[in-house]
């Protein structure tokens, strides 16, 4: 097929325009390309290709042991320290290679925050829990610390409950409050992306609702990726849903599409509760 010069240029222009349009509309926060992760040679995450757009909530769902958490932990390189871990492919964070040699792990993890399945406040005062990350990254002078602590606690709706006991141990708090504290702690270092690994699985329904509503308030300033076992939760909060099975990404699409008209039979079975 022959293409004239003019035609080619027009096509290129169109391409560029379309791209610009796409970029302007929804720049990619995370771009996963042929990503494979193994523990001791056993493939846990298999050839994932996924684009997560900026300022969205993406839920990763799937049966237990399907590699959701491992994939999530690959994004901020939390698997690096685990023995036997190896990976191929790439993950980009706003166009930067996460696995490049010159990436500073510390600043990567500042930009990509994480909240875990079980609340894990540090064994120090409530106030200190939030301040320590800020201090570690020298994000603010000491004199601002009180305001930052207050702002973060207000942001997660914890300020009223704990304002009188900032110096006390966080282990006195309820599980839900502890998780909110962990959320505040993650937010305190001003991340661009927040990864949540089943953040509400150990919480009661009311705390769960509190966390979900918060997450919805954080977008679009923040890009959120949440691993969840709870399909109803994914339905309630997610813009996009990725369905994982046996380490592979089976289907990725908008929340409505995945739940109402799934393309893959496995997805259909899973979301209708036939297995998982």
């Amino acid at each position, binding site marked *: 097929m022959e293409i004239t010069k003019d035609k080619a240029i027009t096509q290129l222009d169109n391409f560029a325009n379309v791209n610009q349009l796409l970029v302007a509309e929804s720049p990619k926060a995370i771009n996963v390309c042929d990503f494979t992760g193994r523990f001791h040679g056993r493939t846990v995450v298999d050839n994932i290709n996924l684009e997560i757009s900026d300022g969205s909530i993406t839920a990763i769902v799937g049966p237990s042991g399907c590699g959701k958490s491992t994939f999530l932990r690959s994004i*901020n390189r*939390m698997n690096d*320290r685990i*023995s036997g871990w190896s990976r191929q492919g790439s993950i980009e964070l706003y166009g930067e290679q996460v696995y490049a040699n010159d990436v500073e*792990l*510390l*600043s*990567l*993890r*500042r930009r990509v*925050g*994480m909240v*875990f*399945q*079980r609340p*894990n406040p*540090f*064994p*120090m005062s409530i106030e200190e829990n939030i301040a*320590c*990350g800020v201090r*570690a*990254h020298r994000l603010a002078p000491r004199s601002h610390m009180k305001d930052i602590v207050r702002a973060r606690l207000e942001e997660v709706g914890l300020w009223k409950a704990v304002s009188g006991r900032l110096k006390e141990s966080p*282990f006195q708090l309820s599980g839900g409050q502890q998780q909110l504290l*962990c959320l505040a*702690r*993650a937010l*305190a*270092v001003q991340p661009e992306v927040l990864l949540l690994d089943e953040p509400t699985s150990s919480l009661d329904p009311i705390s769960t609702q509190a966390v979900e509503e918060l997450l919805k308030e954080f977008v679009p300033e923040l890009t959120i990726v949440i691993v969840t076992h709870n399909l109803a939760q994914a339905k309630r909060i997610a813009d996009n849903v990725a369905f994982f099975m046996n380490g592979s990404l089976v289907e990725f699409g908008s929340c409505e599409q995945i739940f109402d008209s799934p393309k893959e039979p496995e997805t259909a079975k899973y979301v209708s509760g036939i297995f998982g």
Partner: protein
Amino acid sequence: MSTHTSSTQGLPFSPLRGSPLSASPKGQLNSSKYPYRVFLGLARWWRAVVEQSPQYLSAVLGAIPFLALVAIVIILFHEAFPAIKVNGGGFVTHSKWSVGSEYANPIRRDGVATPVGATYGAWPLILGTLEASALALIIAVPVSLLSALIVVEKLSARASRWVGVFLEILVGIPSVIYGLWGALTLGPFLAHHLAPIANHIPNVPILRFFRGPTYNGEGLLTAGVVLGIMIIPIIASTARDLIRQVPASLKDGGRAIGMTDFEVSRKVIWPWIKSGIVGATFLGLGRALGETMAVLMTCGAVLGTTAHSIFSNMNTIAATIVSQLDSAQTDGTGFAVRSLAELGCILIVITLICNIGAKLLLSRATHDTTTT
């Protein structure tokens, strides 16, 4: 409850019957694959004894350690009582240590026969014990803590297992071997190489304590270093277990907000383990206070004077009891032996305080871990 069931099921303590609660099938136990059936029979008999014995028997057995401790303390105090009466409060404050005259007729003081001129002051020994132990802790605690951190956080599982094996071997080395090494190798080394450097320290109060004549290399520093090395395995293995108990999710949490390994150690691991580490330190202190042979061989065993510098000869309570027992037994009135027993009382009180402190702190540390 087991007493009741056993009466309906045959002879209690019978070696032929398994316990009524026995879980394993009989055929498996008698399998010819297992050549040591005699031991199995014994084990089964023992299990029968344990499970069918009446409750009070286990209560009695369980009380043995407690009764032994009480008995030791009572007997020791009883033995020391005349000396406590005669020596009075001065025993812990003054320094002169003299058995008195063996040839003059004994005199009676407070109704107790004592040799003429017998005077006992344990102050240098108490101070020496505390000094040597403190020095040992100063050396052992940082080393143990760092090595435990490295073993848990940095080494592979295999390497840390090997380090664990060596730690256990270190605990098992007889203290006389440590003493020999201290007296023959470490002491002369410190005297020849460290002391000349230390003598550049200005001769002013406080700093003066870190310089001075070295004699034969035996002294406070040598004893302290040897003691320190001896208690490293104790503190390090406890610290290692404590660090292992720090939940992985907590360390992950620290790394996930971008803390360095050092920050994770300082801000996440340390607050979690610190009360346990204090307990481990007390455990090591208990060992250091009571350690006898290695100290006796490296301290210079001088009586009647406190150490003027870290290089001077000194003595501890435990080392004195050993080195003085022989001559004390030549005291016809028995007063010297009673004074040594009084020395033993002081040591046991110090040690008990340390051990109880350690237990309390360690149990609190475990309590913290379980509630959260």
